């Protein structure tokens, strides 16, 4: 697809009134995405009715700007509070928050915002230039490929385990078990529901995630009675990287954005998986992997570039095949349907202008979100200068409201509280939370796809190893699982030899 018509569409979008709508949408998305307990998907769902009175192009453009803002806004609370504003920003907390604790909150945000922008633009470029072939690639993924991919993502547990691989694996297994609570995905047999009707549908991801990260963090912060503020004073000098520093991050940003686009293009996977995979790869490729988890900018770049690359990636199967790439694009699909349009191959043929306007909207939203966030850095960081005794209850309230708003159930607030306690206790015991969340997200994907795959192959595992794509991903998964263990064993052997030589 050529870029000429897209450029024309961009010019149309530069009309002041539409630009204002897009700016408001981006700002609303950033605000909702930044609040722990509210997500980008919620932002689009809530604002969808506002677009009914607009034309299809405008309505969709506004929703895309909200989506882009929401995906990017998650980094604000991830960095400043260690509470991912959206599930996609989980990996941003690993290094963004330590940077904030070191007085480098503004720098973490500057780097994260630029990485988000870069990821969105790369995703938009691939969407514009290569949507149909990428969609065909996404379609080539069958159940066994999805299963292999989920194993690859699960292998990241080992890298996220930090000092104790055993504790990381136990945390991950706990997450996998939590994900199995509810009706099993194929035969709908209730598992571990304790007879509760509310558990028949399983545990919603949002209260689990927000509880484990945000509520546990609030409980931890509340213990430090002599600490009046959440963050130390922030140094705003050099919050934007220089050109030389940017060049050092470009390789990581491109690789992470591509991971985001590919993962986003796969229906059923989203920014959370993309961010964690990209983070792991960045750590393995880094010259200083030991800095990850302690405030490494590369970690923030990888996570944010990947989770925003998902925006363009998820739109690929949505527009070309009518298959939503994730929950957010499912709502965009609903928006298209409400306006009387059918996404799929015929959309490109019969409504080219709409397709070009979607591409243009992603580019323009990326710039608007960049501007709003860069201008708002002092405001965001400054908000943390409120005393802790005011901020923490407010944060908790947003967590309660976000969990309640999901299904209008008090039960989800209880889930939030229980998982807050669980996260608090696990961290006190030195168990990392990243693998637990990974298990919760990937458990259903892995089980569902393996079982469906085996049904289609009449119980044979052969396709898992015979299909080139699934075999390649499986080999990567095994290598990814074993390499940190091998590295640790080599380091121990080297340390023993050194000790023996000195003795």
């Amino acid at each position, binding site marked *: 697809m050529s870029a000429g018509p897209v450029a024309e569409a961009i010019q149309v979008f530069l009309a002041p009134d539409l630009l204002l709508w897009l700016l408001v949408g981006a700002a609303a998305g950033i605000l909702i995405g930044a609040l722990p307990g509210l997500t980008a998907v919620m932002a689009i769902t809530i604002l969808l009715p506002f677009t009914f009175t607009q034309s299809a192009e405008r309505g969709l453009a506004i929703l895309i700007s909200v989506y882009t803002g929401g995906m990017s806004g998650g980094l604000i609370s991830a960095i400043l509070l260690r509470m991912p504003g959206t599930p996609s920003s989980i990996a941003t907390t690993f290094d963004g928050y330590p940077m904030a604790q070191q007085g480098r909150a503004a720098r973490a945000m500057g780097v994260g915002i630029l990485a988000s922008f870069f990821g969105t633009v790369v995703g938009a470029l691939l969407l514009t230039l290569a949507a149909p072939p990428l969609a065909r690639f996404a379609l080539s993924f069958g159940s066994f490929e999805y299963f292999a991919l989920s194993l690859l993502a699960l292998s990241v547990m080992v890298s996220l385990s930090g000092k104790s691989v055993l504790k990381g694996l136990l945390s991950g297994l706990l997450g996998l078990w939590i994900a199995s609570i509810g009706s099993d995905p194929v035969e709908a047999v209730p598992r571990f529901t304790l007879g509760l009707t509310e558990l028949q549908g399983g545990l919603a991801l949002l209260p689990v995630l927000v509880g484990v990260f945000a509520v546990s963090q609030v409980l931890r912060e*509340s213990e*430090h009675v*002599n600490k009046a503020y959440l963050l130390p004073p922030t140094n705003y000098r050099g919050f934007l990287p220089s050109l030389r520093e940017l060049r050092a991050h470009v390789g990581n940003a491109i690789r992470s954005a591509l991971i985001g686009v590919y993962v986003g293009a796969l229906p059923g996977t989203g920014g959370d998986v993309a961010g964690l995979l990209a983070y792991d790869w960045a750590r393995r490729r880094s010259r200083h992997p030991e800095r990850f988890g302690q405030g490494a900018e590369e970690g923030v770049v990888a996570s944010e570039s990947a989770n925003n690359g998902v925006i363009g990636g998820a739109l690929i199967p949505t527009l070309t095949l009518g298959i939503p790439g994730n929950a957010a694009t499912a709502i965009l699909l609903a928006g298209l349907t409400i306006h009387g349009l059918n996404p799929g191959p015929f959309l490109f043929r019969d409504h080219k202008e709409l397709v070009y306007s979607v591409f243009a909207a992603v580019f323009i939203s990326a710039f608007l979100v960049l501007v709003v966030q860069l201008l708002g850095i002092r405001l965001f960081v400054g908000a943390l200068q409120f005393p802790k005794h005011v901020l923490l*209850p407010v944060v908790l309230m947003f967590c309660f409201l976000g969990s309640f708003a999901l299904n209008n159930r008090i039960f989800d607030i209880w889930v939030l509280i229980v998982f807050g306690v669980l996260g608090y206790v696990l961290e006190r015991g030195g168990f990392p939370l990243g693998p637990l969340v990974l298990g919760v997200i990937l458990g259903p994907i892995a089980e569902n796809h393996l079982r469906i795959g085996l049904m289609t192959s009449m119980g044979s595992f052969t396709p898992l190893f015979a299909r080139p794509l699934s075999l390649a991903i499986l080999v990567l998964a095994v290598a990814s699982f074993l390499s940190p263990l091998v590295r640790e064993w080599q380091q121990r052997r080297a340390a023993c030899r050194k000790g023996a030589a000195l003795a």
Partner: protein
Amino acid sequence: MRSDTGFGLVFAVLGLSIVVSTFTLPERLFDFVGPRVFPQVIGTLMFVFAAALIVKDIRSHRLLAGQPAYGSGEAGKSEAAAQAGERRPAVALLLLLLSSAFALALPRIGFFASSLGFLAVSMMVLRGPRPARLAHVATLAVLLAGAMYLSFEKLLGVMLP
């Protein structure tokens, strides 16, 4: 009890319980794996890794038993005491109880009243040793509860109790 051994025991019991409870599930109805297999694998691995954690913890404590403990001198004792003094787990517990009280009160007395109470009491609890001005805290709680009610119910259309 050493914390790693304690956690290991909890995980071991959980793993065992998971495996045992899967035997109440049907083996399989129409697919080749059935609803039992994944939880059984998870429970078994959990038990095995938990046992490994317990063994590792016991062995590492035996190794350290013959050596002087790091920080066991006066400097270490005062450092540990200072760290313990900085943290007050009782405040976290209070906040947890307040959160539970909020969840209990919400469907009974509505959002505004329950959030007002939660915000006011938790702000006072978190102020710690610094004196709290009741009027200040109450005003802030009313404003915050009102703002949240207006933004969620009126602006975002989320129906609150």
